[in-house]
């Protein structure tokens, strides 16, 4: 186990790399208001974060990541475009597997740039790859934008698309919904019987609680619409499966995607962006001929990743968590800024310095 002073020094060194490239160093509070994080991530965050209590301020969480405070800080008084770097501990409760660290350092680099998002994607990836270049790591990439575009382009009702989009980051749930909408899975218990009634709300007993009779009637109407809608076609489901199952180098994947886009024109723009990004990465010296692309990458890591996603892994040490991860999270800034109508295209990544040290220990320094 590497000691904390060494990890801190390594974090400072990595942060120095990003500062030298023009990033502004920023800090974030360790205690974060729980309400914001709960609103963003839902109840699951309670299982993953340390929740604590202040008699005056109420519930607080030990920061589970820097993304939220850095976005908030930028929205409050940042000039654009902006590049930030930061370092510090993050805290993750480990309810199940007790061998993973519950407190560890992160060094981050985040770019807020409205004008050149693809260029910003490539920059973040290339800077992190650069910082990690002495280690021979495998990089994996993906693009949530492709999947989002594919779902938006399905020939089905808007309600079905919205339901699929909402669960895009929960693969099992997404699959169950897709199977149902494609007519491959039965309706949930009791639904057919309910819809068969002339007035399902008859004999329903007293109306209690905040969810009103009008809301219930609206959903019955939505279910009737759904029951009458044609299933999503086998062909469309197969195309989605092709997309999700992609596992190739970036160059090969582009030609496969061009084929898929012939039958699924909705993804054409997303494929263009992927191609432009590959070019931008190439210009920055990334070996895109050998850069892995996975169609499902990023679906389980963080809700709100909605574009380019990436991670760096030590192939010889599958026991270790990824050395670095990152991606584009425009959707998160939309949710965080919705009260004031703010949204800021954002992309960034984090490195775990203690993993870097663990991989360099014994090797050349």
């Amino acid at each position, binding site marked *: 186990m590497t000691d904390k002073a060494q990890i801190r020094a390594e974090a400072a060194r990595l942060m120095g790399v990003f500062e030298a490239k023009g990033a502004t160093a920023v800090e974030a509070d360790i205690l974060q208001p729980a309400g914001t994080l709960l609103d963003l991530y839902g109840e*699951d965050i309670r299982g993953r974060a340390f929740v604590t209590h202040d008699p005056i301020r109420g519930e607080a969480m030990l920061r589970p990541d820097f993304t939220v405070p850095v976005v908030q800080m930028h929205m409050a008084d940042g000039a654009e475009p902006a590049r930030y770097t930061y370092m510090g501990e993050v805290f993750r409760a480990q309810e199940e597997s007790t061998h993973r660290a519950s407190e560890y350092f992160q060094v981050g680099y985040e770019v807020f740039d409205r004008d050149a998002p693809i260029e910003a994607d490539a920059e973040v990836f290339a800077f992190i790859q650069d910082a990690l270049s002495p280690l021979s790591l495998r990089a994996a990439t993906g693009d949530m934008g492709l999947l989002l575009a594919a779902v938006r382009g399905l020939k089905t009702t808007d309600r079905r698309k919205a339901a699929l989009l*909402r669960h895009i980051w929960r693969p099992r749930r997404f699959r169950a919904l897709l199977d149902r909408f494609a007519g491959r899975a039965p309706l*949930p218990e009791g639904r057919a019987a309910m819809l068969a009634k002339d007035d399902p709300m008859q004999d329903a007993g007293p109306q209690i609680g905040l969810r009103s009779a009008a809301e219930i009637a609206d959903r019955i109407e939505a279910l009737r619409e759904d029951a009458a809608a044609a299933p999503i076609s086998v062909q469309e489901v197969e195309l989605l499966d092709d997309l999700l199952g992609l596992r190739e180098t970036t160059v090969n994947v582009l030609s496969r995607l061009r084929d898929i886009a012939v039958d699924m024109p909705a993804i054409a723009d997303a494929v263009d962006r992927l191609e432009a990004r590959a070019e931008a990465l190439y210009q920055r010296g990334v070996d895109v001929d050998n850069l892995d692309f996975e169609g499902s990458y990023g679906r389980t890591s963080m809700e709100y990743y909605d574009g380019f996603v990436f991670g760096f892994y030590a192939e010889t040490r599958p026991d270790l968590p990824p050395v670095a991860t990152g991606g584009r999270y425009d959707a998160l800034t939309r949710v965080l800024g919705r009260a004031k109508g703010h949204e800021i295209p954002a992309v960034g990544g984090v490195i775990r310095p203690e993993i870097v040290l663990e991989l360099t220990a014994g090797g050349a320094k």
Partner: protein
Amino acid sequence: MTLKIGVPSKGRLMEKTFDWFGARGVELARTGSDREYAAAVNGIDGIELVLLSAGEIPRELAAGRIHLGVTGSDLVREKLGSWQDKVSELALMGFGHADLIIAVPKCWVDVNTLDDLDAAAAAFRAQHGFRLRIATKFHRLIRDHLRDHGVADYQLVDSQGATEGTVKNETAEAVADITSTGETLRANHLKILAGKPVHKSQATLFKSRNADWNEATRATLKTLTGKLGLQS
């Protein structure tokens, strides 16, 4: 060195526990006055009986301050993360049966399954600007269950009692609680979601993995489990 066994300190759970051991030739008895929390075990040497609140027995087992304990299987799963690393089940005792369930207002005719609950939660959040509230005291069990079933856009609000009343009081939209007959739920115009309960609970004899298991306590355990007809 005595083997400490923790049993619920009052009510039917205590009586049934005494009966269960009694039927197997191990007599547990309260000693002293009615109000004194003191008890003894007759029939085996080297056992100390500790009367505790059923809710605290999981914690005492995990800490290893008692060797054995009787409590609900729901409480162990709720209160101990990675519970199998901390305790093992010696016997399901066949009483104290209760199901942990999720219930919604009966007037929600469109909601019968978790799948429906998820869809209703999404619409509710869009309409009301906050996540659909589920009142419960079983935070861990319910959160894990809803995550495993891909339910989003809900929040848990803590309710330590009279949980079934929270919907009418508009402090929650749904509840997750223990029920054996469903009577209280029906009386409060609630219905249980279809499908298997979140957990089927019953009184269970647990063994702590963290207690001091030395030669003496191991020997006592062997005698006890022999009498009870269990594998230790």
